[in-house]
């Protein structure tokens, strides 16, 4: 009797020796998406906190947009996990009967804490005055919607708003370590798997955290520039220059950490090194070396450094920021891909390699991943319509007002 049909099928996809249950990858593109989306949340929140806690006045035009972006992505972040589960209907058990030694179970509580206690609270406090004003000026269904959102707290006297502001400040202060915890935990879920040398490093949570901050800052910077252009308003160059500067600094830290991890692995060269090194030079070469490191990290860092060193006109700066921001997001996505997928391409025997075959129209296929990536943008669009995040004083682009001029 020959090998089974399934075995023949699987044999086509691997080289060398894999433990027989390893040939099939367990965590798909959806699990790549999950740390990517969570990272954008944490990064966007850190950017928002720059203005609120660290009083970086220049980034104020993006403060509310950053909060709404964080919320839009945070709402979608658990969906890829949910879709990936063999039994999605049992997912609530993670909250009802959590296993205390499981990082994944504890992460559920960190997520809930961050969503409800930090993000929703902060947005509500910041928008309460606007919600009440919109409730007063609108009619019909809209009025009821805003009334519900106000939770009956309609006092917008100066004293009440001062309390809101103070409470918001405290929540942001709690929010910063919470955002760190949120994404640090995602890194811990991978970094604590001792069976997998590609994942198992104490640097993983730190690398995840900094790459999260980088991706969140880049995303909000791009969203601000694109949405402002769509609204035919003038882009506040002082704001994007400041964001780009922070992006540059955090990217340098992130890159240094990733290189530290890489150099450490090369120098230490433990039993897994030969296998992992071969993987990076073969199956992961394009996604890791070309896309993540070269195009997604070195190029944007050089571009951003260029804007720091040379004085360029605003049009050139905007183009560079757009290019650098887009490459950054591609690079960070590639980093998530290389961690999640790369960590499953080699055998834990270190003697073989398998292949990831991604379906298109499938529950865990590319189409689902694309929809889940676009969904936060749709949610953000709805949020922006309901809760406009734009500063009162932003200037319409007209023939007389030059879009290149910074706005005071």
């Amino acid at each position: 009797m020959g090998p089974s049909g399934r075995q023949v099928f699987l044999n086509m996809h691997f080289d060398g020796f894999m433990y027989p249950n390893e040939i099939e990858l367990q965590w798909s593109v959806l699990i790549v998406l999950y740390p990517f989306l969570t990272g954008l949340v944490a990064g966007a929140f850190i950017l928002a906190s720059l203005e609120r806690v660290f009083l970086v006045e220049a980034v104020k035009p993006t403060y509310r947009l950053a909060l709404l972006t964080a919320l839009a992505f945070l709402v979608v972040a658990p969906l890829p996990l949910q879709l990936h589960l063999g039994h999605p209907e049992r997912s609530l058990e993670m909250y009802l009967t959590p296993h205390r030694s499981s990082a994944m179970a504890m992460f559920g509580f960190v997520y809930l804490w961050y969503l409800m206690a930090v993000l929703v609270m902060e947005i509500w406090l910041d928008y309460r005055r606007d919600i009440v004003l919109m409730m007063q000026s609108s009619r019909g269904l809209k009025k009821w919607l805003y009334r519900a959102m106000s939770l009956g707290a309609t006092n917008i006297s100066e004293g009440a708003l001062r309390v809101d502001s103070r409470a918001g400040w405290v929540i942001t202060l709690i929010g910063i370590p919470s955002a760190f915890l949120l994404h640090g935990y995602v890194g811990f879920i991978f970094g604590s798997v001792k069976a997998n040398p590609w994942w198992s490093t104490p640097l993983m949570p730190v690398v995840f955290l900094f790459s999260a901050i980088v991706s969140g800052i880049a995303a909000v910077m791009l969203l601000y520039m694109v949405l402002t252009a769509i609204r035919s308003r003038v882009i506040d160059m002082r704001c994007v220059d400041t964001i780009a500067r922070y992006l540059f600094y955090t990217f340098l830290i992130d890159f240094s950490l990733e290189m530290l991890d890489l150099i450490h692995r090369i120098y230490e060269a433990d039993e897994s090194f030969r296998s992992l090194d071969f993987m990076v030079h073969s199956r992961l070469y394009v996604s890791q070396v070309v896309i993540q490191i070269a195009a997604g990290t070195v190029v944007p860092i050089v571009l951003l450094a260029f804007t720091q060193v040379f004085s360029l006109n605003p049009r050139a700066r905007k183009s560079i920021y757009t290019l650098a921001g887009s490459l950054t997001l591609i690079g960070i996505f590639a980093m998530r891909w290389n961690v999640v997928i790369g960590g499953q391409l080699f055998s834990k025997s270190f003697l073989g390699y398998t292949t990831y075959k991604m379906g298109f129209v499938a529950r865990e296929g590319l189409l689902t991943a694309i929809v889940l990536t676009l969904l936060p943008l749709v949610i953000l669009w709805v949020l922006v319509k309901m809760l406009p995040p734009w500063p009162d004083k932003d200037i319409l682009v007209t023939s007389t007002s030059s879009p290149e001029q910074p706005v005071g």
Partner: protein
Amino acid sequence: MSLTRRTLLVLLPVAAIAWEYVMADTPESSPNYKTTDHWWGMLLDITKCIGCGSCVRACQLENRVPDGYYRTWVERYVVQDWGFENLRVDSPDGGKNGFPALAASVGKSFFVPKLCNHCADSPCTQVCPVGATFISPDGVVLVDKKYCLGCRYCIQACPYGCRFLNPETKTAEKCSLCYHRITKGLTTACCEVCPTGARQLADLKDPADPVHEFLKTHSVQVLKPHLATGSKTFYNGLDGSVR
């Protein structure tokens, strides 16, 4: 719908038949078995394994393991000289149907039966978000398929590649050390059929179990000892090349 006497009379026998199906997968109770009296492991003698694959076939039949997935499997190592380049390993269909013949003078070759190591400090049970996989009081790592979410974190956490997602139940699955048999005083299906006695179920808490004499008198090793998982599958004659 109002429940009439007639409907009730029809529904009761239907419910009774349905209940039979519901209970079909429930293990029979073992009134004389005390979990705290046992601490299960397995002894695998590489010098005795002939790579016939009987254990893999028996396991698949006994535990209804889906085609192409393995609760146990056999690997063949061919070592020609020192070093990584001189090592060849294969396990066609988990060694279920034996192995193709090797050319003469390829170097030393031997078979390594693999299964869940039933680790005392198992990384797989540690990561399960709901505790659906757990260590029983008698030292067997089990999965409650009625509770498993199918998140596959345990599959990632197992260093030995012993777990898979059952495509029918969509839950994590692995060797249960034939828990339904050993709690009745039987041995596992794989040990039962092994023609050379290369696999022997071992009760580490039973002083009369021959495993103790064997461990005292042989050089045995566990797989990947540096990972400190508290593995309870002991290998006799384990070559340094085995991963």
